[in-house]
């Protein structure tokens, strides 16, 4: 049995044991959806970090920096700074005024049925798209990491999918939380080790390291190139590179605070103060990790080299290959296991937020609003929908195949979160005049604008050379109508505009009357959901 496979199995055994332990503590809504609100500040902070740092950050960023240098580091910066929006604007009011989902805050003073239906649709869109991107990546990666064990892409996708379904269906939020905590600790530990080894390789001289970064050598079309990788502009090129970079920044800074799987984490702690503490913990971990992407990415560029990575699995293998070249096969296996843990923790977080939103917002809040739910019905529906969401993600990932071009789905998730979810949350908390029509049109405009602009962007519309085949080809073979890969710069203003116009063109006195209640509750924590008694 190969070393990576053994480490994978060890991780699976530990997380399944946790799921078994958590399953006995997950009866009832607050226990299943919010881990009884007993997660402490530091635990939730680590879990937020584990929920957030996806394979795209670990493997993807290391790869982008290894191939395109400084421009890749721009993602690292945005992914941390975005947490200031979470900290200053949404985390505490959300914890004070909601129960399980972001729609709780919207439904507070707006008409619950239409608002919950729309918010649930937006949540499901963000979560499923993000999940499909992770699953396709996971399948390709696991198959690559375990290629000596004879595990195919299909087997890997099914394996990852089944595990995430088991965690969420049986262990609920409690198991998901601990899977995320273990993953985050592993990820940080692995990254510190890798960074240390990179520095050791350069004799602990930052000067030597940075000198190497400024003279990265590789071959392009048969010619040897020496490139300064600290220089901006290797990825974001004229004429639209600058705008795309700003648009990406907007989606990150305003989208993170609208990502449903991050927002649900703040319901797992006892109160708003703990929610704040957990954001600070998350920022410490996330920031440290992204600073260290300097060593991961530039280390791979200088020590392993583009030429070698390109012929040994491609950009996503940069970090594992770096580990292999620095410390051999055991460390390679360890880094592969971390990548695997990373993917599982993120897809589990996405599954639980999608199923919570379906059960709590759509089933209990829309379909059964008049009749009311039987005891345990909401949790049962959540378990069923976690199973369905997982199964659908498996099927779609298999249909798309390992070469599918899915990176844009992550950009799409952030764009929808920033353009649809964030305007609705912020305006309902801070604008007295805001009403149901505004929330529904804002959510719809943000959602449609993000999807529409991505559909006509270079991610979907481009002319491929005939050598590119199958699902790796762009869906529409023609020149893109919208030149940017990130729609945020247009879709976020459109989302706010939709919310604004919908509001001023309609009249809903009840929403204004109840503004003071939401204001007092979200700012003081009066009447906020309490910790569940044992």
């Amino acid at each position, binding site marked *: 049995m190969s070393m990576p496979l053994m480490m994978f199995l060890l991780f699976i055994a530990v997380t399944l044991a946790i799921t078994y332990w958590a399953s006995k503590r997950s009866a009832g809504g607050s226990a299943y959806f919010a881990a009884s609100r007993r997660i402490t500040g530091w635990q939730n902070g680590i879990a937020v970090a584990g929920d957030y740092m996806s394979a795209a950050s670990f493997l993807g960023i290391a790869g982008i920096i290894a191939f395109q240098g*400084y*421009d890749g*580091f*721009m993602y*690292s*910066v*945005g992914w*941390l*700074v975005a*947490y*200031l*929006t979470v*900290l*200053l*604007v949404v985390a505490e009011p959300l914890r004070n005024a909601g129960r399980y989902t972001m729609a*709780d805050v919207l*439904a*507070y003073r707006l008409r*619950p049925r239409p608002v919950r239906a729309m918010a649930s649709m937006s949540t499901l869109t963000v979560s499923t798209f993000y999940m499909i991107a992770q699953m396709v990546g996971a399948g390709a990666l696991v198959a690559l990491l375990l290629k000596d064990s004879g595990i195919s892409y299909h087997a890997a996708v099914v394996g990852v999918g089944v595990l995430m379904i088991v965690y969420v269906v049986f262990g609920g939020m409690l198991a998901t939380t601990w899977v995320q905590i273990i993953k985050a600790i592993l990820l940080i530990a692995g990254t510190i080790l890798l960074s240390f080894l990179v520095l050791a390789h350069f004799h602990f001289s930052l*000067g030597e390291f*940075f*000198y190497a*970064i*400024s003279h990265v050598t590789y071959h392009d079309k048969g010619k040897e190139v020496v490139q*300064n990788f*600290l*220089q*901006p*502009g290797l990825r*974001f090129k004229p004429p639209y*590179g*600058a*705008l795309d*970079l*700003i648009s*990406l*920044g907007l989606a990150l*800074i305003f989208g993170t605070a609208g990502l449903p799987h991050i927002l649900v984490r703040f319901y797992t702690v006892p109160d708003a*103060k703990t929610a*704040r*503490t957990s*954001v*600070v913990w998350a*920022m*410490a971990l996330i*920031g440290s990790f*992204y*600073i260290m992407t300097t060593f991961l990415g530039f280390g791979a560029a200088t020590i392993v080299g583009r030429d070698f990575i390109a012929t040994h699995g491609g950009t996503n293998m940069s970090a594992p290959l770096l580990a292999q070249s620095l410390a051999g096969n055991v460390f390679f296996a360890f880094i592969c296991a971390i990548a695997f843990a990373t993917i599982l923790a993120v897809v589990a977080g996405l599954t639980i937020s999608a199923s919570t939103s379906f059960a709590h917002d759509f089933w209990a809040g829309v379909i059964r609003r008049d009749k009311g739910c039987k005891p345990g019905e909401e949790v049962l529906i959540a378990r069923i929908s976690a199973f369905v969401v997982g199964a659908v993600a498996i099927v779609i990932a298999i249909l798309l195949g390992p070469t599918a071009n899915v990176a844009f789905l992550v950009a799409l998730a952030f764009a929808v979160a920033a353009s649809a979810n964030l305007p609705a949350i912020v305006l309902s908390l801070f604008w007295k005049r805001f009403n149901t029509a505004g929330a529904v049109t804002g959510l719809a405009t943000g959602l449609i604008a993000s999807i529409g602009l991505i559909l006509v962007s270079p991610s979907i519309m481009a002319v491929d050379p005939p050598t590119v085949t199958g699902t790796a080809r762009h869906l529409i073979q023609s020149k893109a109508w919208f030149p940017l890969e990130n729609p945020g710069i247009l879709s976020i203003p459109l989302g706010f505009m939709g919310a604004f116009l919908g509001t001023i063109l309609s009249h809903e006195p009840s929403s204004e*009357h*109840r503004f*003071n*209640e939401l*204001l*007092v509750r979200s*700012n*003081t*924590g*009066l*009447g906020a959901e*309490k910790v569940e008694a044992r």
Partner: protein
Amino acid sequence: MQLNNPDVVDRTDWDKMAAAPKFKDLMSAKKLFIIPAFIFFVVYYFLLPILVGYAPKFMATQVFGVVNIAYLFALSQFLMAWGIAALYVRAANTFDKLAKEIIETSEDRASGAVEGR
């Protein structure tokens, strides 16, 4: 489960609470910190992609050996984010105190009218 059924409490109670001087103090203390902090970090952050996008030559200026302005400015973003978070945590201790006083007075006054679950 009265969270979404606020009719339990008299509407005017919430209006009174929102108009109370203590609550207004809390809101202005929060605004005094959060609005400038938010504007500062958004401006500081977007300077990075704007300069990288539109002034790449300037950003490539080397400061320490080969280390350029672009990299140093990006690093400073991490310190900026952590710094604002630390300042916010300090400021928020004051908010917590004010909020606690507001909750206590409201519970004394209404004793039971506001659902204290």
